[in-house]
């Protein structure tokens, strides 16, 4: 399945992806309007620091997703069409079973609303908003294997030009 893949070498930690994510998931879909909304939309992707390097943290859409088993209300499920892991917000009771088991810490508890939020790959849109927003193309929406092959090729090209 296609996922959001990151080229950590290109990420400069500008947070554009985070903002695009929040806007996409706001009620109005507009940055300035979104800021006025009574409940700020939760970011489903968060740019965190890893030993001084930016790391855009997001759901890995695990093949054997522990959050699906853990969810006691049946709100977390695999979308049969895209194979992505999705939360049905209406069913979510904020029991935080998913928060307890997500190995990446990529399901975020929205304590105010009592709902868990995570990357939904911008369901219903052609591409996740963060991917479009990234100025350095650090993010892409691809099959992981394809991303790996492309990354390796690019790295190889880099070393060969360096060698010249």
């Amino acid at each position, binding site marked *: 399945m296609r996922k959001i893949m990151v080229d950590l070498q290109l990420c400069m930690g500008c947070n554009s992806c985070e903002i695009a994510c929040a806007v996409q998931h706001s009620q109005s879909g507009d940055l300035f309007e979104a800021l006025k909304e009574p409940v700020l939309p939760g970011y489903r992707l968060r740019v965190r620091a*890893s*030993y001084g390097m930016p790391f855009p943290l997001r759901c890995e859409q695990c*093949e054997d997703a522990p959050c699906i088993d853990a969810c*006691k209300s049946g709100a977390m499920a695999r979308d049969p069409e895209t194979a992505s892991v999705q939360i049905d917000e209406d069913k979510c009771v904020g029991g*935080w*079973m998913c*928060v307890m088991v997500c*190995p990446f810490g990529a399901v975020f*508890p929205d304590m105010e609303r009592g709902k868990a939020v995570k990357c939904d790959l911008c369901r219903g849109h052609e591409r996740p908003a963060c991917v479009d927003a990234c100025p350095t193309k650090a993010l892409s929406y691809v099959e992981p294997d394809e*991303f790996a092959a492309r990354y390796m090729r690019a790295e190889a090209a880099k070393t060969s030009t360096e060698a010249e």
Partner: protein
Amino acid sequence: MRYLIIGNSAAGLNGAEAIRELDTDGEVTIVSEEDYPPYSRCLIPYFMEGKVSEDDMLYRPSDYYQAHSFRIMLGRRVVKVDTSKMEAQLEDGERLMYDRLLLATGGSPKIPDTTGMDKEGVLGFRTTRDLHAILRALKDTRNAAVLGGGCIGLMAACGLRAKGAEVLVVIRSPHLLSQVADAEAGEMFRRRFEENGVRVISGASVDEVRGDARVAQIHLDNGEQLECQLIVVGKGVAPNVTFLEGSGVAVNRGVVVDENLQTNIPEIYAAGDVAETTDVVTGEKAVNAIWPCAAEQGRIAGANMAGQARTYVGSMRMNSAEFFGLPLISIGVTKPPSDEYQVLSRRQETRNTYRKVVLKQNKIVGLVMVGEIENAGVYRALIQKKADISSVKDRLLDRNFGYPDILPLVAGDRQRFSEPEWRHSLISYRR
């Protein structure tokens, strides 16, 4: 192939779904003593607190059985299993033949045999039946007593309080949540309960329930006598195994299963609160009676029953709960039994948070988080993977400790972290 599943809950339903994924033609029958659509009993407290409607308690949609071509038999109890004839017998005498059988009968509340516990108004907190009995009893209840200070007892206490009852919690241990957390966390929750009008009596147990047909008072072994018209018992659950007597299926603390969730009888599997599995943290046999384990075990048992060999890595003791707005997550060993363990902990009074990480030989074996619970799963992954955390030890109590902190650790131990997700997240990682 005829598959028979006893139990219509986390383990049974996930088992049935796993079977259906692999075997589209097999005959799948689900039998359940409870006469109720596929609901999650974990939502009973949310219903009492008015957070969800009865419809929202459904774990799967109501057209679910039909959509998966499951034959469903609700309100029917299995009383006997004949392993030589490969059939299960129902209370009304009907016999159901099987080629593969999944035991997913869960557990029932343990009610102490104290004098008077058989009176009207003494209830468990397990099923929708219990829920409705409690709601009925609440109509003429002013004072309710909860016996037991574990997650179930405390959820009941919150529910009863939300319904306007005066609530008393009686616990034998010195602090609340003694099985799932530690004294520090227990004290934080005691304060939270007391602030919300719930009285907690610790270090005492009920030695007599008094009243005529219905309970009227409880008498404690510390001499106190208290009025109450309703008692909710939250003192643990015992696996539902009586129907297995004489069947030859091996039962210890629960039904004994191997790593494929198969019992000693090859055609029979068990999963969920009824099954005794290996705890990954302690390495000991245990019944870890929680929803995530039941669902996962059901899924793996189902796959094995349908012919796809799958192994279960083991269960883990873990809990996530929220009482009067204060969240708790606890995993593994929370009260180290010896000085082989090392404890890192930090309490922040101003934020009302607490975090404790229990280590053994530089591996995390336990976690308690109160107030702030983000990233709990990252600790859990380290526990499950038994990873050496020496390189991040000084970060474990950081408020934002999370996946980015363990990137070098994971990258340096790719064999241990071999699942595709870990690999994918590290493709472009350079140290």
